[in-house]
């Protein structure tokens, strides 16, 4: 499966930065997707949630 890396990850001893596209076997691709490190190539990259503000320190 062709995947797009969305979090820096190491595969086969190599570091892949966000945006790297590679084809790996389906089982491993599914694992990387489940770990949130990759998405299937061509699908929308999930947006990161904005950090919640701490009301204690709210101005």
């Amino acid at each position, binding site marked *: 499966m062709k995947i797009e890396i969305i979090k820096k990850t190491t*595969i*086969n001893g*190599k570091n892949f930065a966000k945006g*790297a596209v*590679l*084809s*790996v*076997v*389906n089982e*491993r691709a599914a694992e990387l997707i489940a770990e949130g490190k990759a998405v299937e190539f061509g699908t929308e990259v999930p947006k990161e949630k904005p950090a919640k503000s701490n009301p204690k320190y709210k101005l």
Partner: protein
Amino acid sequence: MAQTTGIMNGTLLGVYAGATPTLIAHATESSISLSMDTRDASTKDSGGYRDLLEGARSGSISVSALYEDLTTKEGVDDLMTLFNARTAVTVKFSTEVSDDHFWSASAYLTSLELSASKEDNVTYSASFELTGTITYDLIS
């Protein structure tokens, strides 16, 4: 994706290699060869014909590709790492399309050859000798 139907286009079958089996990039040819040794069991009782018995099964997977000096795709850089490490890795011959068949086994990289001719693409070919069980199954 559903099973590939009709006479298969060779482009679909690729060679994946490595601890995380990754597609060998820019491949132009890929092949798998399986064979079985035989034991000669001919005797004077064979009536002048050769009698054979089963022997060891073995196989190899080969791939030819265009060379790009990249470390971000599976290619010569990774194959050189395998060559230097002399360790077996998983090699898979597959379309990675659900319900198609694949072949997979542990394998040693036994040959790596690069060729550079003037005004032509740099090419390379690699061969893996399979060791142990050769799996032939459906892609899940």
